[in-house]
């Protein structure tokens, strides 16, 4: 579904991604783990086209999307939920969802506001509330729902559990499982190991812009030394 090959990216002169490679199969859920500044967010921004990669290949559904415009990549079926959520604070919940709407694809049933409210019940009660007057957890749900409105085949979730209360994190786990049931492939970046283990099958660890380890989530769970080396603070 998605194959990233020797991806390099710079911010100005800083060499952030120094050859990132990984791949995800259709219907799978992969988690990118790594400390702050390891390059997780930059990887996502390079995938969606907000950062122009300096070299490397990104094959999405067989076509090379590296260096394309963000809207072209999004229309190809790659959804992106940024770490900062970037809700349109002046727009209501329904309007935020409308901005994300794209035509249905693959003969799959499209995501509608009503279907999304089934996954995120909190949002159903605040259809006309401006995005700026929502809590962090509600904004996170809205950000994910907004991206799902584009009927993505694969969704990039950048630290969806960051700064959320445990109850909300629990809801988020259910939401991601519901997404997968709906046929969406998931790639998420996380620092919260427990959350990652609850939703993903495969894990890739990024350190200083390079891939440090890749394998099954279960292996990571079993190997405390591995976690100590790459993830402990």
């Amino acid at each position: 579904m998605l194959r990233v090959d020797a991806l390099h990216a710079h911010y100005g002169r800083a060499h952030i991604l120094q050859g990132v490679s990984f791949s995800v199969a259709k219907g799978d859920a992969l988690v990118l783990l790594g400390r702050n500044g390891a390059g997780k967010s930059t990887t996502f921004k390079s995938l969606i086209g907000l950062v122009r990669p300096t070299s490397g290949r990104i094959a999405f559904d067989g076509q090379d999307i590296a260096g394309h415009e963000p809207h072209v990549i999004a229309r190809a079926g790659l959804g992106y939920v940024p770490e900062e959520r970037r809700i349109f604070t002046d727009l209501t919940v329904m309007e935020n969802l409308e901005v994300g709407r794209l035509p249905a694809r693959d003969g799959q049933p499209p995501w509608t506001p009503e279907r999304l409210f089934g996954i995120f019940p909190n949002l159903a009660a605040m259809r006309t509330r401006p995005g700026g007057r929502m809590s962090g957890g509600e904004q996170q749900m809205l950000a994910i729902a907004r991206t799902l409105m584009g009927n993505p085949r694969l969704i990039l979730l950048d630290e969806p559990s960051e700064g959320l209360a445990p109850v909300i994190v629990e809801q988020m786990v259910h939401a991601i499982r519901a997404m997968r049931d709906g046929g969406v492939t998931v790639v998420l970046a996380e620092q919260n190991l427990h959350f990652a283990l609850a939703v993903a099958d495969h894990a890739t660890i990024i350190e200083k812009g390079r891939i440090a380890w890749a394998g099954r989530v279960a292996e990571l769970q079993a190997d405390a030394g591995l976690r100590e080396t790459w993830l402990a603070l």
Partner: protein
Amino acid sequence: MSMALPPCRRTKRCGSCAPPEPVSALLVQLLSGLSGASSLFLVAAGLTVIFGVTRVVNFSHGSLTMLGAYLGWSILTRLPRGPEYFVLGIVLTALATAGIGALIEMLLLRRIYRAPELLQLLFTFGIVLVVQDAAQFLWGPNDLPLPRAPWLRSFVTIAGERVPFYDLVLIGIGPLVLAALWLLFTRTRWGTLVRAATQDREMVAALGVDQRRLFTTVFALGAGLAGMGGALALPDASANLQIDLNIITDAFVVVVVGGLGSLPGAFLASLLIGVLQSFGIVLFPQATLVLVFVIMAAVLVVRPNGLLGRAPAVARGAGQGFAAIRPAVPLLLRLGAAALVLAVLAPLAVGPFVLSVMTEMLIAMLFAASLHFMMGPGGMASFGHAAWFGIGAYAAAFAVKGLALGMGAGLLLAPLLAGVAAALFGWFVVRLSGVYLAMLTLAFAQIVWAAMFQAVEITGGDNGVLGVWPAPWAADRRVFYWLVLALCVGATLLLRRVLYAPFGYALRASRDSELRAEAIGLDTTLLRLAAFTLAGAAAGLAGGLAAFSKGSVFPGFISISRSVDGLLMVLLGGVQSMAGPVVGAVAYTGLFDLLLLATDQWRAMLGLAIIVLVLVFPQGIAGSIHRLWLRGREA
């Protein structure tokens, strides 16, 4: 606030009418003001919508209004004269200007969205110049009044007063357009996308929306509104070549007073300004413009972001600023010293014409250096630097002609008055961010210009102040040149010295990060105000010298084009070093004199030069050269 000589609004009472009843006269005046506000609102609404999404302050918006007036004239004079054809003509005009706007966006503006905002302003000013010459070429230099159909001349009687029917039509159009825009922006998918893009256009793109199409359609809508505003004003005025700069100044004031990006704010502010102008013309014909400025200042003191505006969000994915200032390398210092020696010795070798050009270059150098001081290290974009230059020039002239003092007093009064004026004006505006500041400095300069134009008793109006000659001891052109050389080089070096003093570092710190500067105990507002005042005083000295050099002072000393001259000099030379404005001023003065000699279409030529310059060097010439130099060193 008609900035040029107000073209006689034919709905105004003529001198031969009987004096009206006081109360109903107020009503008529009020209605006339409200009707004027409508067309102003359309233009300002277009400006504010375009800015919201593209983050470009579109200087050429006034040109679109002017094109609307001319196209409207061409279309309406070819149609039958019934009201239904008038409506058709207005709609056709709006569509035509929308099309022109879309073309401008796709061919030109699209390429500069990531450039620094001052370059964007300059770029759109290039379009203003080109459109001006194009309009003159197509429609000729004379005003084109619209022959008015009988229904356009009819009156309605309200409270015993005859109110022009067309005024009532205009009064109705403003709220109608506001309502239509509101529906468009809140009830359609397009409107929702536009509002989302106003907040975070990068995120909108990441959600699969093609920004280019959004930008083009928004620009077309804004341009259509501008054109419609221009055409609707036709029956009360005429199509003329002054519309562009007049309306853009008014629109800037409206948008700033109403709050950048707020449509209801623009509507309220248009009403306020429109009514104010209408009453001002009757009550204080000499002080209308000052009144507008006072109101604007009052609003900004109470609500710095305008009546209904909010603190400007930092638009994501917007352009970057300029590179840092670097001290001159020793080679440059040696070149400068050599140039100075040559400049001192020059009068012994060159003739009077070259000497006068060199005098002009020196004055331009100080003017550019003062602007650079404000823009570069101060980080304050000014589009009206000619205000200080002009105040200095008029102060010098006033000292000599009005107070019968000598040249020395004149040259003292010039920087003093300009500095005081800059301090007063700066007090209101230094806290504002880039585009607000650029718009307000422009508006202020236009107001000073119009005030000098209107105050005929003191300034002689368009005839200017004549006979402002240097004192007898400096009457010799060479002695005067040496005086100018000493003062301009001295003042420029002083500005450079200040830049590398602790004050200069503190100033640059406040420019680069206001928050962090305040956190380490710098009073950023005071620092910026001091820089603003100093720059104003230096420009005033340049203006005073210019007055004695020319022997006269005209309102043209304060024109927009002089402000733009200064900007071009600074950007030509580069904002990054103190040597930039010096080199830029010398190069620009020389080039411009050549251009004037070579062609009648100097405006179009200059405009095209600006457009090409910004397209090729979106970071400014010096910035681009510096980047090439860095690349060369790495290779």
